[in-house]
């Protein structure tokens, strides 16, 4: 029996879940998705607030990359795509991007398929059919170098950077050693650490990309917030003892470990390298998770000190409490307690506990966020709507 197993996709990727994704192209048809969700709760029905009303090239690039990224996601075995018809990201524009997935895909459009009720009815039938079609796919041995693991932190306090992120960093190093790929983003929370990250880049080019990415994040914070830019950390963070963004950032970047940074990818972009990857994405948890998911990460570690229950629809999110108090208060939301580190638990033992849990989750054990259905799906935009 192999250490880890998953679902092999026709394009050579491996999933660790076998979801049927029911996805709207635009928020106007969210109600149709909700109807399908009530009828077929076992499907991964996802709604969002996007798909139209934004014309800037950057927003369009992100919109298409995120939607097609979810369709291509290795944890997705089949797709029901619900469009409206007149939206920017309509199915005609989206289809060329999702032609070669090798997955069963059903496309419906409310303006062509008889309105919302009729489309929901057809959607329910298609979702049930695809669920049954993919349900017989067996799990097979999963090579470690086919894994992309995301590291995320949110609702941070000073203990996030002391316990949870330090241990996640140790897990990151272990994964890279195994041949897996580790990705983390949140460029806002890299501000003040350019010198630390750039000296770990694999070459001058990657070092330059890291510096430019952080410079852009810093400039954006200053342009948007002016004199308040130094407080791009939330009041909760400060109550928790972090005084500056650089201090928060140091604790934040610890979660990626200390190996060589092999690539910087854009928001939602899939890495082509192995080892440690940085994503040029925002710090806001929901937006960040979507970018990391659209990149194809099959599993996410998510540390939290103040305590956020947020998960993601398609991938298991392992919640790492950074202090015992929040682990106890939010017991139903937290998968592991890194607060044990300050109570004398050795780092090595906690790391092993985290790796064991990760292997069980890869092999099918549900995380708390999966059990509770605490999915959040939202993504970054850069311009206001028209």
């Amino acid at each position, binding site marked *: 029996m192999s250490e880890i197993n998953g679902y092999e996709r026709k394009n050579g990727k491996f999933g660790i879940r076998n979801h049927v994704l029911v996805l709207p192209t635009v928020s106007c048809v969210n109600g149709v998705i909700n109807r399908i969700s009530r009828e077929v709760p076992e499907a991964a029905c996802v709604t969002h607030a996007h798909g139209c009303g934004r014309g800037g090239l950057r927003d369009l690039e992100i919109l298409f990359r995120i939607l097609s990224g979810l369709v291509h996601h290795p944890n997705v075995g089949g797709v029901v795509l619900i469009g409206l018809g007149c939206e920017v990201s309509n199915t005609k524009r989206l289809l060329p991007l999702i032609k070669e997935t090798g997955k069963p895909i059903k496309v419906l459009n409310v303006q062509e398929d008889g309105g919302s009720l009729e489309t929901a009815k057809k959607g329910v039938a298609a979702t049930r059919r695809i669920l049954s079609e993919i349900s017989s796919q067996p799990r097979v041995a999963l090579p470690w170098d086919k894994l992309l693991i995301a590291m995320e932190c949110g609702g941070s306090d000073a203990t996030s950077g*002391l316990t949870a992120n330090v241990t996640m960093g140790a897990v990151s190093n272990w994964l890279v050693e195994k041949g897996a790929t580790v990705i983390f983003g949140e460029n806002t929370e890299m501000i003040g650490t350019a010198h630390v990250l750039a000296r770990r880049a694999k070459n001058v080019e990657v070092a330059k990309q890291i510096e430019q990415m952080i410079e852009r994040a810093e400039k954006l914070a200053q342009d948007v917030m002016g004199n308040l830019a130094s407080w791009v950390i939330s009041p909760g963070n400060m109550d928790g*003892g972090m005084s*500056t963004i650089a201090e928060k950032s140091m604790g934040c970047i610890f979660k990626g470990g200390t190996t060589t940074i092999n690539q910087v990818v854009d928001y939602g972009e899939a890495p082509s390298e192995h080892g440690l990857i940085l994503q040029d994405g925002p710090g806001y948890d929901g937006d960040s998770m979507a970018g990391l998911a659209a990149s194809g990460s099959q599993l996410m570690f998510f540390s939290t000190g103040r305590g956020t229950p947020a998960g993601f629809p398609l991938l298991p999110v392992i919640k790492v409490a950074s202090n015992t108090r929040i682990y106890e208060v939010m017991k139903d939301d937290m998968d592991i307690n890194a607060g044990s580190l300050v109570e004398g638990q050795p780092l090595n033992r906690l790391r092993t506990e985290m790796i064991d849990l990760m292997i069980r989750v890869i092999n099918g054990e549900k995380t708390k966020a999966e059990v509770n259905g605490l999915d959040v799906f939202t993504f970054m935009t850069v311009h206001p709507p028209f």
Partner: protein
Amino acid sequence: MKDNILIIHSRDNVAVALRRLDVGELAIAKGIDGFPALEEIPASHKIALRDISGGEEIIKYGEIVAVSTRDIKKGEWVHTHNLESKQWKK
């Protein structure tokens, strides 16, 4: 005695309180002599490990995380009232 502060890196001039420290309570960590907290230090907040002069860099994780805005005595609470961001001045 159990440690009540954590020194993350040997270069650091601040440590992190593992729980709330009262005024006068000894701050304790492996490898250093205990020293009294000069004011109340909230849990997870920073305490000065030595005297820090105004304008000096605040080092945590072995890296610069802020700059002090006034002299800070060993044992004082180190937070937004006596430091500023190196990225952006207040």
